């Protein structure tokens, strides 16, 4: 009797493991993968109203507590921001010509440029459902014009790109995700890839030769070139450390993401897709 029970248990285990492996295999095949994606999108659409409702309640509650505790510093910060806004408006007027020139030069090289691309403002309604991915969920989806591959920005910096989109939600892969790899340039020189390394860890730049002149504090921009490219000219990060190997052949460059990825509430999706 006990032996029969053990045999039955092991048989159940083997069958379920085989079923799981079968499902995994099916996900790697085109047709079944599309069906699985459709089901996933339907589930996201079903759950998103609850996410939105909870976000609508918790965000203001959190803001009340934060505002009460930080009122003094918020007032100081407000005054500083007003001052900076005035300076930026003056600078914008002066940069308008330079921006138009840059757009003309880039268009000659068939490179997309961020200025003038329509934006879809979205609210972050959820963090990553997995502990092994850096993603956020947005409250806009295909019905609002959001699609996979579109870059996402906030606070004048790159947040990531849309990886999946259902009718009413979208999932954004953040720049610090280990699978994120963005073609970038440092200042206006060089072509590298900024690779994520997970939560709280800096981005790493690949393909940096030992002789490359990269300095701490330099801004890193999207280059608009290479596979998986996004629009050129979007700030991605700030160089935080530069280390040259003993032989001088390899330079290891790390960068802090331009955007605080732990404090995202509203972002803009750029209505642009990589051609071809």
């Amino acid at each position, binding site marked *: 009797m006990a032996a029969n029970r053990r045999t039955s*248990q092991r048989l159940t285990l083997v069958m379920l493991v085989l079923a799981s492996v079968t499902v995994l295999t099916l996900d790697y095949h085109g047709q079944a993968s599309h069906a699985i994606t459709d089901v*996933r999108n339907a589930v996201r659409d079903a759950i998103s109203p609850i996410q939105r409702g909870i976000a609508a309640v918790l965000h203001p509650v959190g803001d009340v507590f934060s505002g009460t505790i930080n009122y003094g510093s918020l007032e100081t910060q407000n005054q500083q921001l007003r001052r900076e806004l005035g300076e930026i408006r003056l600078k914008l007027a002066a940069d308008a010509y330079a921006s138009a020139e840059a757009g003309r030069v880039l268009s000659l090289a068939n490179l997309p440029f961020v200025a003038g691309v329509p934006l879809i403002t979205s609210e972050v309604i959820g963090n990553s459902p997995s*502990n*092994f991915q850096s993603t956020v969920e947005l409250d806009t989806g295909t019905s609002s014009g959001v699609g996979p591959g579109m870059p996402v920005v906030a606070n004048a910096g790159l947040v990531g790109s849309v990886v999946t989109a259902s009718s009413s939600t979208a999932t954004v892969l953040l720049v610090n995700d280990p699978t994120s790899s963005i073609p970038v340039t440092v200042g206006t020189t060089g072509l590298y890839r900024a690779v994520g390394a997970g939560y709280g860890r800096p981005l790493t730049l690949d393909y940096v030769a030992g002789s490359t002149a990269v300095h701490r504090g330099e801004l890193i921009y999207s280059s608009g070139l290479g596979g998986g490219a996004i629009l050129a000219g979007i700030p991605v990060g700030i160089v935080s450390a530069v280390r040259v190997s003993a032989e001088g052949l390899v330079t290891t460059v790390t960068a802090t993401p331009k955007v605080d990825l732990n404090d995202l509430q509203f972002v803009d999706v750029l209505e642009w897709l990589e051609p071809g």
Partner: protein
Amino acid sequence: MTGSSWARLALVVAIGLVLQVAVLDDVTVAGAHPDLMVLIAACAGMTAGSQRGAIAGFTAGLAADLVVNLPYGLSPLTFVLVGFGTGLVRANLAGRDDERTQAAACAVAAGAGTLLYALLGALTGHSGMVGLVTVSAVVVVTAGAAVLSWPVLRSLQWVFAGSRDQLGLVVPRGGSAG
């Protein structure tokens, strides 16, 4: 498993998934959050034995993978092993299966399941799942499971109430068998 057990399991898994996505995903420490779905698999094995634990784990895993962007099937594979493993642990806890011990065992199983998930994910090509992120995920999932295991155990006891576990003992309402 009876029809009513299936219906209750589906309900518990659905509610667990909604709570996970809508609430627990935003409770982050060091970039990681508690994982209710792996805990459901662990508690199912602890409550109703390895066979039913594996079945419940498979079900919870199918649901959990609907909301992530990793290979579909990774969670069912992991949770089957977690549910089966805790069922075996349960069978060997004779004389020490009070609620506190069960809850502790489920918390440890949830953490072990998270580690197994990362290892299996690395085997399927996602090498970034193994690293410092694994440590924080295991710690946070285990701590979260320690807090949540009692209500989840109660829920799974309700799911399997009236059915027989692997020892042929009836799982009564509100308490474990044996």
